[in-house]
């Protein structure tokens, strides 16, 4: 699709590999009371909510640094509907892909 700078991608991969592994290991090694403060636990539970919400919105509406409403919005709306209907994970993703492709094929 777009040309990414290979070195930059590898730097990002290296940082992510190190960071994600170290937090996993930290959980197994640190003394229990360090992470067991209720406020820390609640923040840890809420952080993914904020990140996932922002990521969902951006990847649905962002084109570069501008906001657009295109076929992806229809696809993600279909995924939302599938979630409301309690569809399995793969059906949710499949619905988004199929509807986005369909809308694009129709010139949306």
């Amino acid at each position, binding site marked *: *699709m*777009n*040309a*990414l700078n290979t070195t930059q*991608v590898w*730097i*990002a*991969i290296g940082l*992510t*590999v190190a960071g*994600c592994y170290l*937090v*996993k*290991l*930290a*959980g*197994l*090694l*640190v003394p*229990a009371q360090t*992470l067991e403060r209720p*406020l820390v*636990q609640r*923040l*840890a539970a*809420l*952080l*993914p*909510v*904020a*990140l*996932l*919400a*922002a*990521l*969902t*919105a*951006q*990847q*649905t509406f*962002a084109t*570069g*640094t*501008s*906001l657009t409403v295109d*076929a*992806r919005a229809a*696809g*993600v709306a279909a*995924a939302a509907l599938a*979630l409301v209907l309690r569809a399995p*994970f*793969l059906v949710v*993703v499949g*619905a*988004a*892909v199929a509807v*986005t*492709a369909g809308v*694009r094929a129709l010139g949306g």
Partner: protein
Amino acid sequence: MAEKTAHPATRDIREDPSAGTAGSGPAGAGAASKPEAAVVRDALGVGVAVGLSGFAFGVTSAGAGLTLLQTCALSLLVFTGASQFALVGALAGGGNPFTAAAGAFFLGTRNAFYGLRLSQLLALPRPVKPFAAQWVIDETTAVALAQPDRRSARLGFTVTGLTLYVLWNLTTLLGALGAEAIGDTAAWGLDAAGPAVFLALLAPMLRTATERATAGIAVVLGLGLLPVLPAGVPVLVAALAAPAVLWARGRRAGKRPEQEEETAR
């Protein structure tokens, strides 16, 4: 992989350790002396269902412009789905490697809390911990916590971890190869797979007003700041919705002395 199961896991983590054997919810359904075959069956079920979504990651990553080697390296070495999706999404959006990795890292921090509980539950020997750490993710935690005793928990953790690791990497490879064969992934609507995965992970987390408020503020920040800040940064700013909402809630609950947010200030 499917942080879909994040919820049961995080919920169990906050419960009393004995709750699992007390027969509360699905965790207690197995009751005492669970046969080995049943543990393996549970673990395989979770592993297979979730491992398949690696296909979506392979396609998304290849569609974002990562090479086959880069895509497979992520699944082999990062092995925590939401972080992987976030990283390739941020890179495709033009983010620099540091902000992209920061977003992925923050999504991965919840694994530390899973590790904390698993450490007590599995009582792993110290030399084993560096190896077991890579499998400390949503699904292995959910399965291990659902077992009635340490032996079953260790078995559940190992079988789920192994199944997921093999399938997640295999399906990543197939997805990336498939995307390369397809060519223009956007024409097939595959650029909608990433946001759909995030939405599927997010939906079960929106249980209370606190989570919904956090998500709402994060969306506004993430979209509102997109045109004005460098790529990748708006997501990190949006993450501040979490402490902001906790702070505001703690302030409102400040009149009630039993709330620990008050003592934290």
